[in-house]
């Protein structure tokens, strides 16, 4: 991995956006802060997905499973012991009688996500194409049903409450920046490049001596760890969670963020998450009516219709996503600004 100026800029762009979003939390009302925090944590989730999906080219519907187990393990283990007896009486004694602090619980969330991904990845990473998509979807279903029904590991179908709300702007920003840095370092590492090679042509990569199964398994496990950490950040922002919150809706929303931003670049994952999350929050508030100098009130249900239309439009007009599959660069930013103000430059960006 060569840390030249251009490479560092590729990392600086996504981090700068997340830090700006984090700092903006300090200037807005609590209502808007919640939406900013959601957007920042969405970046962490989408980046964790991109580590596997973006680099391997294998579509996975199961990545939110790791967010879910991270969220529930971190949540269950940070609820005060004295409260668990009343709220979660059926828990395994190990979970019921112990409480962790904030940072250890986030580390545990990442570890649980990684272990689950490793175990599941051993058989699953031999699959690709449609079979991989269906198998990872099955993983999502199994995880969801276990979390929803098994009251020895969580609240079952009811809400897990009383989780300390430790994810403010600082924790959300630091945690998400950590996820971005790990994803970036992996992408530019030897294993990351080998996986990218297998994405472009799996047969050629294998012929060149790359063990595709091993590289996919490593990325899947790393993605699981980062997803678990993102789940920990998420649950400590909301303060409560249900199994339904980390299931189909979140799966499709985060995959849409990835595709809209551009699945094959880190910059795409970040801007896709921020833009779609921001648009979703704005439309959600608009359904309740907001003051934009005039009363702006959208009919109920508009959010999903408009989000769907925007996503379809982006995919039709720019199939490789808003980023075009490129990483952040000053040239690219200049070109984008130039486009916005009607100027054109001839320089290309970096891939």
């Amino acid at each position, binding site marked *: 991995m060569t840390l030249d100026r251009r490479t560092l800029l590729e990392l600086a762009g996504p981090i700068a956006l997340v830090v700006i979003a984090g700092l903006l939390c300090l200037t807005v*009302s*609590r*209502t808007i*802060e*919640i*939406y900013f925090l*959601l957007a920042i944590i969405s970046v962490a989730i989408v980046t964790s997905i991109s580590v596997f999906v973006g680099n391997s080219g294998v579509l996975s519907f199961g990545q939110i499973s790791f967010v879910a187990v991270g969220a529930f393990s971190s949540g269950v283990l940070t609820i*005060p012991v*004295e*409260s668990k007896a*009343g*709220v979660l009486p059926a828990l395994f004694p190990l979970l019921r009688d112990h409480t962790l602090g904030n940072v250890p619980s986030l580390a545990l969330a990442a570890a649980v996500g990684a272990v689950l991904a490793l175990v599941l990845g051993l058989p699953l990473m031999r699959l690709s194409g449609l079979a991989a998509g269906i198998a990872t979807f099955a993983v999502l279903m199994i995880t969801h049903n276990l979390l*929803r*029904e098994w009251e020895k590991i969580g609240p*079952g*179908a*009811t*809400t897990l*409450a*009383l989780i300390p*709300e430790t994810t403010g702007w600082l924790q959300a920003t630091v945690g998400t920046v950590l996820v971005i840095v790990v994803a970036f370092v992996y992408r530019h590492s030897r294993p990351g490049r080998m996986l990218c090679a297998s994405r472009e042509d799996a047969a050629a990569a294998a012929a060149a001596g790359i063990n595709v199964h091993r590289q996919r398994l490593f990325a899947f496990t790393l993605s699981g760890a980062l997803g678990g950490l993102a789940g920990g950040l998420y649950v400590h922002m*909301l*303060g*409560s*969670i*249900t199994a*339904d*919150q980390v299931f189909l809706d979140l799966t499709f929303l985060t995959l849409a963020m990835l595709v809209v931003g551009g699945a094959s670049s880190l910059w795409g994952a970040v801007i896709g998450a921020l833009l779609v999350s921001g648009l979703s929050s704005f439309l*959600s*508030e608009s*359904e*309740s009516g907001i003051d934009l100098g005039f009363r702006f009130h959208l009919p*109920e249900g508009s959010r999903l219709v408009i989000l769907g239309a925007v996503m379809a439009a982006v995919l039709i007009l720019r199939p490789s996503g808003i980023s075009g599959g490129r990483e952040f660069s000053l040239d690219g930013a200049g070109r984008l600004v130039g486009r916005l103000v009607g100027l054109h430059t001839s320089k290309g960006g970096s891939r």
Partner: protein
Amino acid sequence: MIKSKRGALSALLAALVTVAAVAAGSASAAGKPIVIGWAFDSKGNMSPFDGPALAAANVRIKEINGKGGVNGRPLSITTCDTQNNDPAKAKSCAASLLGKGADIIFTTCDVDYATPVVQESINAGKLTIAPCIGTDQMGPKRFGAKGKLAFSFGNVAQDEGSAMAEYAYARGWKTAATATNTLLAYFKIVVQAFEARFTQLGGKVVDRESYATGANNVQNAVSRINAAKAAVYVTVTSFGELPAFVTGIRSLGNNTPILNSWAGDGTYWVPKSGVSNYYAVTYASAFGDDPNPAVNALAKAVKAGTGGFVTGAAAIDGVVSAIKRAGGSTDGAKLAAVMEKFNKVPTISGLVTFSPALHSVSGRQYRVIRIEGTTEKVVGSVVAKTVPKVG
């Protein structure tokens, strides 16, 4: 003459004092409003319960403000739609209402859905009220020490399940088969309480089934429970599973009585072809035949669809009593301390008693309604004599 002048002066002073007092009173009556921030579900799963409760609260507030308000301060409601209780939106709603200066927060009628709002509100130190959460978990049991600020004017689920069992047994239904929707704590606890009390009375639970909203398995439960020979089928559910369960059983040619809780009140879910032999134990009649005329008048005013509407007005009655007893304070901790001492405080839905451990209502006189075709009628009432310890 001097005496007369002194008398006139005294009279003038008295008049001035009187005018000043009245003016002060008027100023107080037009004082700063007590703002209730109400996070509710306008069109989602909980809308059949939240909407009527909010409408009834608005009617009650209009009446109270017409009589001078609370200690001279008018009540006002500002609302936020939680959009089918989306957790992030609900949390944002609570923050928004608090940002608009809400003194007290009201939330949706289920403790699981209400959790994001409740936590945001109690973290801000505000009294947090649910008009009709039906479990004993709206309080310290679910929300720990800060749960001291959380109360519900809904029933304790154990009390409701026990009342259902006593009604069933008194009707001569000595065997029951139960089907639990495992989605919500309320659903589960009511069924558990029914089973415990029914068995205590000498009844026999011959079959236990379960299903869950969103799991697409209610028809499996229907098929299995259809095979059970029982005098009554008991389920506690609402949402799409309610018509699916009831019409599913009837479509198999099985006309065994079905008994539901308040969750299954109202006719909004009944298909045009109607249902038969269906009962629910609820707060009040929404259809003009409640034993309490005041309830009927309120039901008419709000065009109620389910009996839970009455809890919206009852919650306002309770909050008004608490503010008066706290000397006009709207401080969350002070109001909560007063409410924990509520002992048979009168409201439109009956007498309300709370305790430090129990922040929901028990001992309510329930109405039993029956739906035949598409018409709901009150067919009895029941009070739970014994409440089993379940949940």
